[in-house]
């Protein structure tokens, strides 16, 4: 190349550099986009997969879990598993399946302190405070307690017995004389260990543990439960309603708490007819009496 064109290679080199860089940026960028989108879809994990006790909420968990499997190693019951690539759980992260291998709720929670990053919260030291998920009686049509049969297995195996699951006694409409022993789960005590799901006697469990966000509803943020506010304040927070005054004949009262109309027999007005007295109603059987009542009093 002659001297006159000596500038050309340099600019060619620059051009080439820019194009090469753009090419690399494009390729790597596309790959990054793919990984990002994949991670979004992979984060919506299978509802049956339950995280170990103390797991942070899912986003923080996936930000901090190194997928080392130390929790898996230190679980004395070998219930934990790291998700294989291709499973419905983010690759390499720990989970358990309540139906086959529920958490046995060790008192010293050995899976937590070994977690190097705190993806399993080291502040959780009382296993009863764990909220791995929440048991839900998902099917009232097959749960045999609802059919009127005695079971109560979930109630009896619950490690927080009597608190996380209680039995509600209801009338058995079908037989007319028996009781139903209905299991009710309480989220303030249920740890989501899954022992109830494992113990459920059905072929497909009628009580299942779900991750908290699937199991729980959430009140709108604007809701204020008036009765709770009232209890907290010790008095009504709004001007109390004036007690409604009925235009009742003398000797009669109306009770709001369920008694309904009350006759004060001593002060009851004399009944005009024997029929009326028998029916114990303040109103005359003759509609004209009612219409005339005001007029007569005015006179």
């Amino acid at each position: 190349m002659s001297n006159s064109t000596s500038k050309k290679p340099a600019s060619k080199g620059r051009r080439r550099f820019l194009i090469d860089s753009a090419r690399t940026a494009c390729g790597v960028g596309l790959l990054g986009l793919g990984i990002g989108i994949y991670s979004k879809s992979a984060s919506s994990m299978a509802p049956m997969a339950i995280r170990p006790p103390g797991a942070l909420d899912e986003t923080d968990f996936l930000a901090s879990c190194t997928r080392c499997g130390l929790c898996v190693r230190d679980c004395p019951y070998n219930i934990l598993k790291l998700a294989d690539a291709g499973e419905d759980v983010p690759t390499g992260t720990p989970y358990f399946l309540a139906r086959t291998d529920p958490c046995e709720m060790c008192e010293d929670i050995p899976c937590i302190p070994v977690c190097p990053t705190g993806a399993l919260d080291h502040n959780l030291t009382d296993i009863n405070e764990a909220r791995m998920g929440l048991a839900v009686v998902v099917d009232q049509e097959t749960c045999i307690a609802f059919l009127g049969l005695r079971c109560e297995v979930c109630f009896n195996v619950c490690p927080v017995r009597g608190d996380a699951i209680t039995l509600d006694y209801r009338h058995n409409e079908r037989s007319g004389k028996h009781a139903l022993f209905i299991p009710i789960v309480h989220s303030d005590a249920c740890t989501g260990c899954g022992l109830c799901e494992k113990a459920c006697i059905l072929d497909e469990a009628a009580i299942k543990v779900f991750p908290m966000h699937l199991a729980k509803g959430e009140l709108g943020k604007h809701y204020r439960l008036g009765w709770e506010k009232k209890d907290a304040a010790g008095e009504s927070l709004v001007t109390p309603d004036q007690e409604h005054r009925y235009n009742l004949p003398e000797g009669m009262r109306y009770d709001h708490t369920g008694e309904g109309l009350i006759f004060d027999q001593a002060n009851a007005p004399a009944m005009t007819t024997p029929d009326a007295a028998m029916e114990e109603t303040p109103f005359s059987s003759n509609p004209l009496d009612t219409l005339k009542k005001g007029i007569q009093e005015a006179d």
Partner: protein
Amino acid sequence: MARYTVLGAEAIRKKGWWQAHKWLTLRRMSQIGILLLFMLGPWAGIWIIKGNLSSSLLFDVVPMTDPFVFLQMLATGFSAIAAEAVTGTLIILAFYLLVGGRLFCSWVCPVNLVTDASFWLRRRLGINTGANFLRNTKYWMLGMVLLVAAVSGVMAYELVNPVSMLHRGIIFGMGVGWLVIAGIFLFDLFVAKRGWCTNLCPMGAFYGLLGKVSPIRVRADARSKCDDCAECFVVCPEPQIIPAILKGEEKGIPPVILSGECTNCGRCIDICGEDVFHFGLRFDRSKAVLSSGEMNAALKQKL
């Protein structure tokens, strides 16, 4: 001066098989030994080390955490990191800062076994096809990994990272992860020469940056003995880093490979029949001067 005919034959003839395969053998022993150490627990119930390369616990006491994973964790914005991960990361950082960052790639990483096998087969089959990546693509990849972590708020790359996937897979179960590993093998075989480790792996990029400052390096103090057989170029996973050092005597370039991209695999040391290369310290200038002085003397004698 002639180019080699059979790769490594000259070295074996001059130095014997062991000297021509010493570092390669040690390296394979290290790679497989580390895997076995991790497997000893699940297989035999002997828990010397628990976990995997991402995080582990040595003798139930010493925590170790991969600084590349730790960096991703920081990028997600997660800040409530427990002390064990911080200590563990510092331990691993200190180790690789000392011995060479990409020592991880060639002495520890299980994917290296796969890509080395692929490279061996590629040479055997005489495959010369190659997508050409920019050499710095892996640094773009590293940037992308951290960006995706920052944007998504989760360690997204760890969902697909073939390195952690393979190591964890061998210990804990693989699933369809084998397909990813097979993919890398085939990619290196047909698409690009040493495509994954040299061009793409962001983990290698990260450890390469670490390795820029580490004191243990491959030195070419006897570089004047080089007979231009070019075998070191063939076996080196990062051959672009050799010429300047090997041929830089006149330009005053010190005979030590300072590039962070060198994996300290030592294959160049094995393959060189003239024993040009050896492991040494980066600051060992006196020895360099001495040896080049020796070389000058030798040259004068020849003349």
